[in-house]
């Protein structure tokens, strides 16, 4: 390859990488540092802060609200993964048929995903409004979607599935078009019905892509902040709270920076583990 060792390419590579190290890797490391310190409004900008070992983590783990929020986060992510994969796959299969306007109509669904998450949250807060909301009008009963602690997490989940599903569906669609046609033709000749073809050809061929998409959904939903912040603010009584929002509240509302940082570390570990799985899946797919 001509000039593949060109110094220019290394400069080109260094610019974005250094940028990301400075403004992502450093903040992540700094956050972990803060989680080991006693950080107050007074010493927030200095480095000379007392180390308190794992005290912040001990306090977080002893807090029943944290356990509740951690469980909420896991439920929120799991429900999103299942719903977005399930609905996304069904919609992608529907759009894998041939009919006029198929590509345009499928792409149009992405309009939901293009909206700012905060606007989606505001919009769904209005749709879910108890008294004048269109959803309660449609079902004919005044359900307290956001004010009832036993429903609020489900409500923000529904909104987030609406928001994220089109993106998941588009990725699954792309994987579907990558499946070669020959096995289907052979199976049709052998008399396999559509269910059998799906079960024995489509699903196995899609498995690596579905795993990658599941990882992406996890990463994206672990990030959810704007949407929940706008819809419920994590309430009532933390019933719809998730880790990033919980951490934000400790940091920016109670100024308990060390606690906020320690909560953040738990979320970091989760996304980091899932990201490793994602990269591993992509690598394996690339090799095959």
């Amino acid at each position: 390859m001509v000039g593949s060792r060109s110094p220019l390419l290394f400069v080109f590579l260094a610019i974005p990488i250094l940028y990301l190290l400075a403004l992502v890797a450093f903040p992540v490391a700094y956050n972990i540092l803060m989680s080991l310190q006693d950080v107050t409004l007074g010493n927030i900008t200095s480095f000379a802060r007392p180390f308190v070992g794992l005290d912040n983590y001990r306090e977080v783990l002893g807090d029943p609200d944290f356990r509740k929020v951690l469980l909420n986060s896991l439920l929120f992510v799991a429900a999103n993964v299942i719903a977005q994969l399930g609905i996304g796959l069904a919609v992608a299969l529907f759009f894998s048929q041939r009919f006029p306007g198929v590509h345009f109509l499928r792409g149009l669904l992405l309009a939901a995903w293009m909206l700012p998450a905060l606007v989606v949250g505001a919009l769904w807060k209005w749709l879910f409004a108890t008294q004048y909301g269109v959803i309660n009008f449609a079902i004919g009963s005044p359900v307290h979607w956001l004010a009832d602690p036993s429903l609020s997490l489900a409500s923000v989940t529904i909104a987030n599935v609406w928001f994220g599903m089109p993106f998941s569906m588009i990725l699954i669609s792309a994987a579907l078009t990558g499946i070669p046609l020959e096995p289907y033709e052979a199976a049709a000749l052998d008399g396999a019905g559509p269910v059998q073809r799906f079960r024995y050809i489509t699903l196995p061929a899609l498995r690596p892509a579905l795993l990658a998409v599941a990882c992406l959904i996890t990463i994206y939903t672990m990030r959810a902040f704007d949407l929940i912040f706008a819809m419920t603010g994590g309430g009532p009584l933390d019933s719809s709270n998730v880790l990033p929002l919980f951490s934000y509240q400790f940091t920016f509302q109670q100024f308990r920076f060390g606690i906020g940082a320690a909560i953040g570390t738990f979320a970091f570990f989760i996304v980091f583990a899932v990201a490793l799985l994602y990269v591993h899946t992509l690598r394996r797919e690339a090799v095959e």
Partner: protein
Amino acid sequence: MILARRRAPLLTLIAVAGVALYLFPIYWMFISGLKDSAEIFANPPSLFPRAPSLAAFQHVFARENVLRYLRNSLAIAVPVTLLTVAMGACGGYALSRLRSRLVDAALFAVLMLQVFPDALLATPMFIIFKFLGLLNTFAAVILATTSKTLAFALVILRPMFRQVPIELEEASLVDGCNRFQTFRRIVLPIMHIPLIVVGALSFVQAYGQFVYALTLLSRQELQPATVGIYSFVGAEYADWNRVMAFSSVFVVPILVLFLALQRRIVAGLTAGALK
């Protein structure tokens, strides 16, 4: 096959109905903005505004400084887009051409660095920009947001740069262009469509940026529209026709951009995320 052809119009019909139902919330946003204060709280709600009124729009323009909020959103989103495309093009090109352990490590770093929730990086960002004296400046929000869009851009652009035939570059180098000239005159023009797609997606993300604007800008006159909308809906009671009018005005640029580039955006997303 004949059967399939006869079913096709029916499938289109089902798809149109399904997509319309799915996107109903967006329709509801626009329609709610067109209702007056009495009709917005009508029970049952009207699915078409009985007496379409621009009162809510007039209110948000005249009283709520929508234009200032939009200007602030653009003052953040446009520089983020330019920075992301510039650095993304350099980095994506380098990642597609270099082959070494270092590049593998860099690619791994990029993939890992795109996953951290921004709400969790807000405190360190706050401290960094306080240290740099950039709190309450657009620069802080621009730099913080670019850290998010850049990783995404690199992931999408790398496979696209790989599709540029190396023979073209070799020919250009043989003709006496240096590496930078080759990049600028041969590679970038070929790549202009993927770069536009990445630019559009970065713009959309930056335009909707909320957390960093909330934490790095405390002066109201600098805040973008996301923070403005939040100040409406954060309260228990909200004038929903005004909130929806504000939101409608805010998302129009995004929806226009999306409709104009729909096919290319779909292609761009699928190229990056799974490769």
